[in-house]
Protein backbone atom coordinates (compact mmCIF):
# COMPACT_ATOMS: atom_id res chain seq x y z
CA UNK A 1 0.00 0.00 0.00
CA UNK A 2 1.35 3.38 -0.98
CA UNK A 3 -0.23 5.13 2.01
CA UNK A 4 1.88 7.26 4.29
CA UNK A 5 2.56 6.49 7.94
CA UNK A 6 1.00 9.72 9.14
CA UNK A 7 -2.45 9.86 7.59
CA UNK A 8 -3.00 13.02 5.62
CA UNK A 9 -6.30 14.47 4.68
CA UNK A 10 -8.40 12.29 2.42
CA UNK A 11 -8.85 14.57 -0.54
CA UNK A 12 -11.55 14.45 -3.20
CA UNK A 13 -10.12 12.63 -6.19
CA UNK A 14 -11.40 12.23 -9.72
CA UNK A 15 -12.70 8.80 -10.67
CA UNK A 16 -13.50 7.89 -14.27
CA UNK A 17 -16.21 5.38 -15.06
CA UNK A 18 -14.74 2.49 -17.01
CA UNK A 19 -17.58 0.01 -17.16
CA UNK A 20 -21.02 -0.75 -15.78
CA UNK A 21 -21.97 -4.35 -14.95
CA UNK A 22 -25.62 -5.25 -14.45
CA UNK A 23 -25.83 -7.51 -11.39
CA UNK A 24 -29.59 -7.74 -10.75
CA UNK A 25 -32.66 -5.72 -11.81
CA UNK A 26 -31.91 -3.21 -9.02
CA UNK A 27 -28.15 -3.45 -8.60
CA UNK A 28 -25.23 -2.46 -10.82
CA UNK A 29 -21.49 -2.51 -10.38
CA UNK A 30 -19.58 0.54 -11.52
CA UNK A 31 -15.92 0.04 -12.31
CA UNK A 32 -13.91 3.20 -11.71
CA UNK A 33 -10.37 4.20 -12.54
CA UNK A 34 -8.85 6.40 -9.82
CA UNK A 35 -5.32 7.36 -10.89
CA UNK A 36 -4.39 8.58 -7.40
CA UNK A 37 -5.83 5.56 -5.53
CA UNK A 38 -3.65 4.83 -2.46
CA UNK A 39 -4.93 1.26 -2.00
CA UNK A 40 -7.53 -0.16 0.37
CA UNK A 41 -8.41 -3.07 2.61
CA UNK A 42 -11.43 -5.31 2.11
CA UNK A 43 -14.45 -3.95 3.97
CA UNK A 44 -13.59 -0.26 3.59
CA UNK A 45 -15.84 2.26 1.85
CA UNK A 46 -15.61 5.49 -0.11
CA UNK A 47 -17.55 8.71 -0.16
CA UNK A 48 -18.90 9.76 -3.54
CA UNK A 49 -19.76 13.39 -4.31
CA UNK A 50 -21.93 14.68 -7.13
CA UNK A 51 -22.09 18.34 -8.14
CA UNK A 52 -24.94 19.99 -10.04
CA UNK A 53 -24.37 22.74 -12.60
CA UNK A 54 -25.32 25.37 -10.02
CA UNK A 55 -22.85 24.06 -7.43
CA UNK A 56 -25.29 22.05 -5.30
CA UNK A 57 -23.61 18.88 -4.01
CA UNK A 58 -24.60 15.60 -2.43
CA UNK A 59 -22.40 12.96 -0.80
CA UNK A 60 -23.05 9.29 -0.09
CA UNK A 61 -20.97 6.36 1.18
CA UNK A 62 -20.55 3.13 -0.79
CA UNK A 63 -18.71 -0.06 0.12
CA UNK A 64 -15.83 -1.07 -2.08
CA UNK A 65 -16.58 -4.36 -3.84
CA UNK A 66 -13.18 -5.11 -5.29
CA UNK A 67 -9.92 -6.47 -3.98
CA UNK A 68 -6.91 -4.18 -4.30
CA UNK A 69 -6.21 -3.90 -8.04
CA UNK A 70 -4.00 -0.94 -8.88
CA UNK A 71 -6.07 2.11 -9.77
CA UNK A 72 -9.29 0.15 -10.33
CA UNK A 73 -11.99 0.57 -7.70
CA UNK A 74 -15.40 -1.04 -8.11
CA UNK A 75 -18.55 -0.08 -6.25
CA UNK A 76 -21.75 -2.11 -6.33
CA UNK A 77 -24.72 0.20 -6.03
CA UNK A 78 -28.33 -0.61 -5.31
CA UNK A 79 -30.66 1.75 -7.14
CA UNK A 80 -32.99 3.35 -4.60
CA UNK A 81 -36.07 4.51 -6.50
CA UNK A 82 -36.32 7.77 -4.55
CA UNK A 83 -32.55 8.06 -4.13
CA UNK A 84 -30.73 11.30 -4.78
CA UNK A 85 -27.42 9.76 -5.85
CA UNK A 86 -27.78 6.04 -6.62
CA UNK A 87 -30.03 6.33 -9.74
CA UNK A 88 -27.48 8.69 -11.28
CA UNK A 89 -24.62 6.27 -10.61
CA UNK A 90 -26.48 3.23 -11.93
CA UNK A 91 -28.34 4.71 -14.90
CA UNK A 92 -26.97 8.10 -15.96
CA UNK A 93 -23.20 8.05 -15.58
CA UNK A 94 -21.50 7.05 -18.85
CA UNK A 95 -18.09 5.47 -19.41
CA UNK A 96 -15.46 8.20 -19.67
CA UNK A 97 -17.39 10.55 -17.38
CA UNK A 98 -16.01 11.47 -13.99
CA UNK A 99 -17.26 11.69 -10.45
CA UNK A 100 -15.48 12.70 -7.26
CA UNK A 101 -14.54 10.17 -4.66
CA UNK A 102 -12.70 10.16 -1.34
CA UNK A 103 -11.33 7.18 0.52
CA UNK A 104 -10.64 4.53 1.55
CA UNK A 105 -12.52 4.99 4.81
CA UNK A 106 -12.96 2.82 7.90
CA UNK A 107 -10.51 0.79 9.94
CA UNK A 108 -12.76 -1.63 11.83
CA UNK A 109 -15.00 -3.57 9.46
CA UNK A 110 -11.97 -4.78 7.52
CA UNK A 111 -10.28 -8.09 6.87
CA UNK A 112 -6.91 -9.04 5.45
CA UNK A 113 -5.58 -12.56 4.86
CA UNK A 114 -3.07 -12.02 7.70
CA UNK A 115 -6.03 -11.62 10.09
CA UNK A 116 -6.80 -15.31 9.55
CA UNK A 117 -10.02 -17.14 10.23
CA UNK A 118 -12.15 -19.09 10.19
CA UNK A 119 -14.19 -16.38 8.56
CA UNK A 120 -17.99 -16.36 8.86
CA UNK A 121 -19.64 -13.82 6.60
CA UNK A 122 -23.37 -13.14 6.89
CA UNK A 123 -24.91 -10.95 4.19
CA UNK A 124 -28.40 -9.54 3.74
CA UNK A 125 -29.12 -8.24 0.22
CA UNK A 126 -26.63 -5.65 -0.97
CA UNK A 127 -24.83 -6.07 2.36
CA UNK A 128 -22.86 -8.70 0.47
CA UNK A 129 -20.72 -5.98 -1.14
CA UNK A 130 -18.01 -5.42 1.51
CA UNK A 131 -18.02 -9.17 2.24
CA UNK A 132 -17.42 -9.84 -1.45
CA UNK A 133 -14.36 -7.60 -1.23
CA UNK A 134 -13.08 -9.95 1.49
CA UNK A 135 -13.80 -13.04 -0.62
CA UNK A 136 -12.11 -11.47 -3.65
CA UNK A 137 -9.13 -10.36 -1.57
CA UNK A 138 -8.76 -13.88 -0.24
CA UNK A 139 -8.96 -15.32 -3.78
CA UNK A 140 -6.56 -12.76 -5.26
CA UNK A 141 -4.01 -13.56 -2.57
CA UNK A 142 -4.33 -17.32 -3.15
CA UNK A 143 -5.31 -17.49 0.52
CA UNK A 144 -7.15 -20.58 1.75
CA UNK A 145 -8.55 -19.25 5.05
CA UNK A 146 -11.65 -21.28 5.84
CA UNK A 147 -14.49 -18.96 4.83
CA UNK A 148 -18.23 -19.44 4.87
CA UNK A 149 -20.69 -16.98 3.37
CA UNK A 150 -24.32 -17.19 4.43
CA UNK A 151 -26.13 -14.92 2.00
CA UNK A 152 -29.81 -14.01 2.28
CA UNK A 153 -31.66 -12.65 -0.78
CA UNK A 154 -35.34 -12.22 -1.53
CA UNK A 155 -35.56 -14.07 -4.85
CA UNK A 156 -33.14 -15.88 -7.16
CA UNK A 157 -33.02 -12.77 -9.37
CA UNK A 158 -31.83 -10.65 -6.45
CA UNK A 159 -28.65 -12.65 -5.84
CA UNK A 160 -25.65 -10.38 -6.55
CA UNK A 161 -22.39 -11.99 -7.79
CA UNK A 162 -24.11 -15.38 -8.17
CA UNK A 163 -21.83 -16.77 -10.91
CA UNK A 164 -18.63 -15.45 -9.42
CA UNK A 165 -19.46 -16.89 -6.00
CA UNK A 166 -20.04 -20.26 -7.61
CA UNK A 167 -16.74 -19.98 -9.44
CA UNK A 168 -14.80 -19.02 -6.30
CA UNK A 169 -16.32 -21.78 -4.15
CA UNK A 170 -13.91 -24.48 -3.06
CA UNK A 171 -10.38 -23.87 -1.73
CA UNK A 172 -11.92 -23.41 1.71
CA UNK A 173 -14.81 -21.15 0.59
CA UNK A 174 -18.36 -22.39 1.16
CA UNK A 175 -21.32 -20.32 -0.02
CA UNK A 176 -24.79 -21.00 1.41
CA UNK A 177 -27.78 -19.12 0.02
CA UNK A 178 -31.05 -18.38 1.78
CA UNK A 179 -33.93 -17.20 -0.43
CA UNK A 180 -36.66 -15.68 1.69
CA UNK A 181 -39.46 -14.78 -0.73
CA UNK A 182 -39.31 -17.16 -3.68
CA UNK A 183 -37.20 -20.10 -4.69
CA UNK A 184 -36.53 -21.78 -8.04
CA UNK A 185 -37.93 -25.27 -8.66
CA UNK A 186 -35.87 -27.93 -6.92
CA UNK A 187 -34.34 -25.47 -4.40
CA UNK A 188 -32.75 -27.49 -1.60
CA UNK A 189 -31.04 -24.75 0.40
CA UNK A 190 -32.69 -22.46 2.96
CA UNK A 191 -36.03 -20.83 2.12
CA UNK A 192 -36.43 -18.59 5.16
CA UNK A 193 -34.84 -15.63 6.93
CA UNK A 194 -31.52 -16.16 8.66
CA UNK A 195 -32.11 -17.36 12.23
CA UNK A 196 -30.14 -18.89 15.09
CA UNK A 197 -30.79 -22.44 13.94
CA UNK A 198 -29.45 -21.66 10.48
CA UNK A 199 -26.38 -19.92 11.90
CA UNK A 200 -25.73 -22.89 14.18
CA UNK A 201 -25.79 -25.16 11.14
CA UNK A 202 -23.65 -23.02 8.86
CA UNK A 203 -21.17 -21.27 11.18
CA UNK A 204 -18.11 -22.82 12.80
CA UNK A 205 -18.67 -23.63 16.47
CA UNK A 206 -17.72 -21.13 19.20
CA UNK A 207 -14.77 -23.41 20.04
CA UNK A 208 -13.31 -22.69 16.59
CA UNK A 209 -13.47 -18.97 17.36
CA UNK A 210 -14.76 -17.76 14.00
CA UNK A 211 -14.55 -14.10 13.01
CA UNK A 212 -18.03 -12.90 12.11
CA UNK A 213 -18.72 -10.06 9.71
CA UNK A 214 -22.35 -9.19 9.05
CA UNK A 215 -23.66 -6.48 6.75
CA UNK A 216 -27.20 -5.75 5.64
CA UNK A 217 -30.34 -3.85 6.54
CA UNK A 218 -30.60 -2.93 10.22
CA UNK A 219 -33.23 -5.51 11.26
CA UNK A 220 -31.26 -8.25 9.47
CA UNK A 221 -27.98 -7.42 11.19
CA UNK A 222 -29.69 -6.97 14.56
CA UNK A 223 -31.18 -10.47 14.24
CA UNK A 224 -27.89 -12.02 13.13
CA UNK A 225 -25.83 -10.37 15.87
CA UNK A 226 -28.32 -11.38 18.57
CA UNK A 227 -28.37 -14.97 17.34
CA UNK A 228 -24.57 -15.17 17.16
CA UNK A 229 -24.24 -13.98 20.76
CA UNK A 230 -27.01 -16.36 21.86
CA UNK A 231 -25.16 -19.27 20.24
CA UNK A 232 -22.27 -18.63 22.62
CA UNK A 233 -19.88 -16.67 20.41
CA UNK A 234 -17.92 -13.78 21.92
CA UNK A 235 -19.75 -10.49 21.26
CA UNK A 236 -16.42 -8.93 20.27
CA UNK A 237 -15.99 -11.60 17.57
CA UNK A 238 -18.77 -10.11 15.45
CA UNK A 239 -18.28 -6.95 13.45
CA UNK A 240 -21.35 -5.38 11.98
CA UNK A 241 -22.32 -2.80 9.41
CA UNK A 242 -25.96 -1.78 9.17
CA UNK A 243 -27.79 0.34 6.66
CA UNK A 244 -31.23 1.86 6.57
CA UNK A 245 -33.68 2.64 9.36
CA UNK A 246 -34.67 0.41 12.24
CA UNK A 247 -37.45 -2.07 11.73
CA UNK A 248 -40.84 -0.84 12.74
Amino acid at each position, binding site marked *: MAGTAVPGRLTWELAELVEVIVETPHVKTIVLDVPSWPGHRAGQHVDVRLT*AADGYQAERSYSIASALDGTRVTLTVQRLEDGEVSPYLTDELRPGEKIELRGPIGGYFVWEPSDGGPLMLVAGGSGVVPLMAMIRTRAAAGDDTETRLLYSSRTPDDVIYRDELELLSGNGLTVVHALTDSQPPGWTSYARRVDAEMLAEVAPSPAERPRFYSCGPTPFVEAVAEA*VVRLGHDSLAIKTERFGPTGR
Partner: protein
Amino acid sequence: MPPEAAKPVVSRGWRGRRSTDVDPARIPPGQYVTRDFPVLSAGPTPHTSLELWDFSIIGELDSPRRWTWEEFRDLPSEEITRDIHCVNKWSKLDTVWQGVSVDTLLEGIETSGEYVTQYSDGGYTTNLPLEDITGGKAWVVFAYGGEPLEPEHGGPARMLVPRHYFWKSAKWVRGLRLYLSDEPGFWETNGYHNYGDPWQEQRYQGD
Protein backbone atom coordinates in the same frame (compact mmCIF):
# COMPACT_ATOMS: atom_id res chain seq x y z
CA MET B 1 -1.27 12.92 -2.06
CA PRO B 2 -1.99 14.95 -5.18
CA PRO B 3 -3.60 18.35 -4.65
CA GLU B 4 -7.34 18.53 -4.30
CA ALA B 5 -9.20 18.89 -7.58
CA ALA B 6 -9.34 22.64 -8.16
CA LYS B 7 -12.98 22.70 -9.18
CA PRO B 8 -15.57 20.03 -8.52
CA VAL B 9 -16.51 18.14 -11.66
CA VAL B 10 -20.09 18.85 -12.66
CA SER B 11 -22.18 15.71 -13.05
CA ARG B 12 -23.90 16.06 -16.43
CA GLY B 13 -27.66 16.13 -16.08
CA TRP B 14 -27.68 15.66 -12.33
CA ARG B 15 -29.74 18.17 -10.36
CA GLY B 16 -30.00 16.53 -6.97
CA ARG B 17 -32.99 16.67 -4.74
CA ARG B 18 -32.91 19.67 -2.50
CA SER B 19 -34.99 19.92 0.61
CA THR B 20 -37.39 22.75 -0.04
CA ASP B 21 -38.92 22.74 3.44
CA VAL B 22 -35.64 22.99 5.36
CA ASP B 23 -33.50 26.01 6.12
CA PRO B 24 -30.19 25.14 4.38
CA ALA B 25 -28.32 26.93 7.18
CA ARG B 26 -29.29 24.05 9.48
CA ILE B 27 -27.58 21.43 7.34
CA PRO B 28 -23.80 20.98 7.74
CA PRO B 29 -21.73 20.49 4.56
CA GLY B 30 -22.14 17.10 2.86
CA GLN B 31 -25.21 16.14 4.93
CA TYR B 32 -28.75 15.34 3.78
CA VAL B 33 -31.96 15.38 5.79
CA THR B 34 -33.60 12.06 6.62
CA ARG B 35 -36.88 11.35 8.32
CA ASP B 36 -35.82 7.80 9.21
CA PHE B 37 -33.58 7.05 12.15
CA PRO B 38 -30.78 4.88 10.75
CA VAL B 39 -28.76 2.68 13.11
CA LEU B 40 -24.97 2.44 13.04
CA SER B 41 -23.19 0.14 15.46
CA ALA B 42 -19.96 -1.78 15.17
CA GLY B 43 -21.19 -4.88 17.00
CA PRO B 44 -24.17 -6.58 18.61
CA THR B 45 -26.70 -4.56 20.59
CA PRO B 46 -26.06 -5.08 24.33
CA HIS B 47 -28.97 -5.71 26.68
CA THR B 48 -28.25 -4.68 30.24
CA SER B 49 -31.07 -5.07 32.74
CA LEU B 50 -31.98 -1.98 34.71
CA GLU B 51 -31.16 -3.80 37.98
CA LEU B 52 -27.57 -4.19 36.80
CA TRP B 53 -27.29 -0.81 35.11
CA ASP B 54 -25.39 2.00 36.75
CA PHE B 55 -23.73 5.20 35.65
CA SER B 56 -20.33 6.21 36.95
CA ILE B 57 -17.90 9.08 36.76
CA ILE B 58 -14.38 7.80 37.25
CA GLY B 59 -10.77 8.66 36.49
CA GLU B 60 -9.24 11.99 37.40
CA LEU B 61 -11.33 12.93 40.46
CA ASP B 62 -11.08 12.48 44.24
CA SER B 63 -13.74 9.83 44.63
CA PRO B 64 -15.73 8.18 41.84
CA ARG B 65 -19.46 8.79 41.58
CA ARG B 66 -22.04 6.16 40.86
CA TRP B 67 -25.80 6.15 40.33
CA THR B 68 -28.09 3.16 40.10
CA TRP B 69 -30.89 3.35 37.51
CA GLU B 70 -33.34 4.51 40.19
CA GLU B 71 -30.95 7.13 41.53
CA PHE B 72 -30.20 8.31 37.99
CA ARG B 73 -33.89 8.61 37.15
CA ASP B 74 -34.46 10.62 40.34
CA LEU B 75 -32.07 13.31 39.08
CA PRO B 76 -33.66 16.38 37.50
CA SER B 77 -34.13 15.83 33.78
CA GLU B 78 -35.18 18.01 30.89
CA GLU B 79 -36.60 17.81 27.39
CA ILE B 80 -34.03 18.53 24.71
CA THR B 81 -34.86 19.29 21.05
CA ARG B 82 -31.86 19.30 18.73
CA ASP B 83 -30.72 18.49 15.20
CA ILE B 84 -28.40 15.49 15.00
CA HIS B 85 -25.77 14.78 12.34
CA CYS B 86 -24.30 11.36 11.56
CA VAL B 87 -20.89 11.06 9.88
CA ASN B 88 -22.58 8.67 7.44
CA LYS B 89 -24.20 11.77 5.88
CA TRP B 90 -27.70 11.88 7.34
CA SER B 91 -29.01 14.65 9.53
CA LYS B 92 -32.24 14.46 11.45
CA LEU B 93 -33.89 17.67 12.53
CA ASP B 94 -35.74 18.54 15.71
CA THR B 95 -35.19 15.22 17.48
CA VAL B 96 -36.77 15.27 20.94
CA TRP B 97 -35.06 13.61 23.89
CA GLN B 98 -35.46 13.44 27.66
CA GLY B 99 -32.36 13.26 29.78
CA VAL B 100 -30.07 14.44 32.54
CA SER B 101 -27.61 17.22 31.79
CA VAL B 102 -23.96 16.27 32.18
CA ASP B 103 -23.67 19.47 34.21
CA THR B 104 -25.99 17.90 36.79
CA LEU B 105 -23.87 14.74 36.92
CA LEU B 106 -20.65 16.72 37.31
CA GLU B 107 -22.02 19.08 39.97
CA GLY B 108 -19.57 19.54 42.82
CA ILE B 109 -16.85 17.47 41.18
CA GLU B 110 -13.34 18.86 41.32
CA THR B 111 -11.11 17.58 38.55
CA SER B 112 -7.86 18.56 36.90
CA GLY B 113 -8.89 16.42 33.93
CA GLU B 114 -9.44 18.32 30.71
CA TYR B 115 -10.59 15.37 28.63
CA VAL B 116 -13.39 12.88 28.98
CA THR B 117 -14.07 9.46 27.50
CA GLN B 118 -17.62 8.13 27.34
CA TYR B 119 -17.58 4.37 27.83
CA SER B 120 -20.34 1.88 27.08
CA ASP B 121 -21.58 -1.65 27.39
CA GLY B 122 -20.00 -3.62 24.58
CA GLY B 123 -16.67 -1.82 24.95
CA TYR B 124 -17.36 1.31 22.86
CA THR B 125 -15.54 4.50 23.80
CA THR B 126 -15.42 8.04 22.42
CA ASN B 127 -13.42 11.04 23.58
CA LEU B 128 -13.89 14.80 23.75
CA PRO B 129 -12.43 17.74 25.61
CA LEU B 130 -14.37 18.10 28.88
CA GLU B 131 -15.45 21.62 27.90
CA ASP B 132 -17.37 20.14 24.94
CA ILE B 133 -19.78 18.23 27.17
CA THR B 134 -20.25 20.86 29.88
CA GLY B 135 -22.19 24.13 29.90
CA GLY B 136 -25.43 22.76 28.46
CA LYS B 137 -23.79 20.85 25.61
CA ALA B 138 -24.43 17.21 26.57
CA TRP B 139 -26.97 14.94 28.24
CA VAL B 140 -27.43 11.35 29.27
CA VAL B 141 -30.79 10.64 27.63
CA PHE B 142 -33.24 7.84 28.40
CA ALA B 143 -36.22 8.70 26.17
CA TYR B 144 -36.63 9.56 22.50
CA GLY B 145 -39.82 10.99 21.02
CA GLY B 146 -41.56 10.51 24.37
CA GLU B 147 -40.83 6.77 24.53
CA PRO B 148 -38.17 4.87 26.47
CA LEU B 149 -35.01 4.70 24.35
CA GLU B 150 -34.96 1.48 22.30
CA PRO B 151 -31.90 -0.78 22.69
CA GLU B 152 -31.03 -0.35 18.98
CA HIS B 153 -30.74 3.39 19.53
CA GLY B 154 -28.69 3.03 22.68
CA GLY B 155 -31.21 2.28 25.40
CA PRO B 156 -31.58 2.21 28.30
CA ALA B 157 -29.45 5.38 28.15
CA ARG B 158 -27.12 7.05 25.68
CA MET B 159 -25.18 10.26 25.44
CA LEU B 160 -26.48 13.18 23.42
CA VAL B 161 -23.77 15.60 22.27
CA PRO B 162 -25.53 17.21 19.31
CA ARG B 163 -22.77 19.69 18.37
CA HIS B 164 -20.61 16.78 17.19
CA TYR B 165 -21.09 13.98 14.69
CA PHE B 166 -23.30 11.40 16.31
CA TRP B 167 -20.57 8.82 16.96
CA LYS B 168 -19.53 11.26 19.72
CA SER B 169 -22.85 10.42 21.43
CA ALA B 170 -22.17 6.95 22.81
CA LYS B 171 -25.01 4.43 22.87
CA TRP B 172 -25.44 2.19 25.93
CA VAL B 173 -23.31 4.62 27.92
CA ARG B 174 -22.31 3.51 31.41
CA GLY B 175 -20.00 6.28 32.47
CA LEU B 176 -17.55 9.07 31.93
CA ARG B 177 -13.84 8.72 32.57
CA LEU B 178 -11.96 11.97 33.17
CA TYR B 179 -8.42 12.19 31.83
CA LEU B 180 -5.52 14.62 32.10
CA SER B 181 -4.66 13.96 28.45
CA ASP B 182 -6.67 13.10 25.37
CA GLU B 183 -7.31 9.38 24.82
CA PRO B 184 -8.70 8.64 21.33
CA GLY B 185 -11.69 6.29 21.44
CA PHE B 186 -13.04 3.55 19.20
CA TRP B 187 -13.73 5.29 15.89
CA GLU B 188 -11.06 7.88 16.63
CA THR B 189 -8.49 5.07 16.41
CA ASN B 190 -10.21 3.56 13.36
CA GLY B 191 -9.78 6.32 10.82
CA TYR B 192 -12.28 8.92 12.03
CA HIS B 193 -11.61 12.46 13.17
CA ASN B 194 -10.60 13.07 16.77
CA TYR B 195 -12.97 16.02 17.30
CA GLY B 196 -15.78 15.47 14.78
CA ASP B 197 -17.27 18.94 14.22
CA PRO B 198 -19.93 18.56 11.50
CA TRP B 199 -19.77 22.27 10.61
CA GLN B 200 -16.07 21.88 9.81
CA GLU B 201 -16.85 18.55 8.09
CA GLN B 202 -14.34 16.80 10.35
CA ARG B 203 -15.30 13.27 9.31
CA TYR B 204 -12.01 11.46 8.93
CA GLN B 205 -8.47 11.63 10.23
CA GLY B 206 -6.78 14.65 8.73
CA ASP B 207 -9.98 16.53 7.84
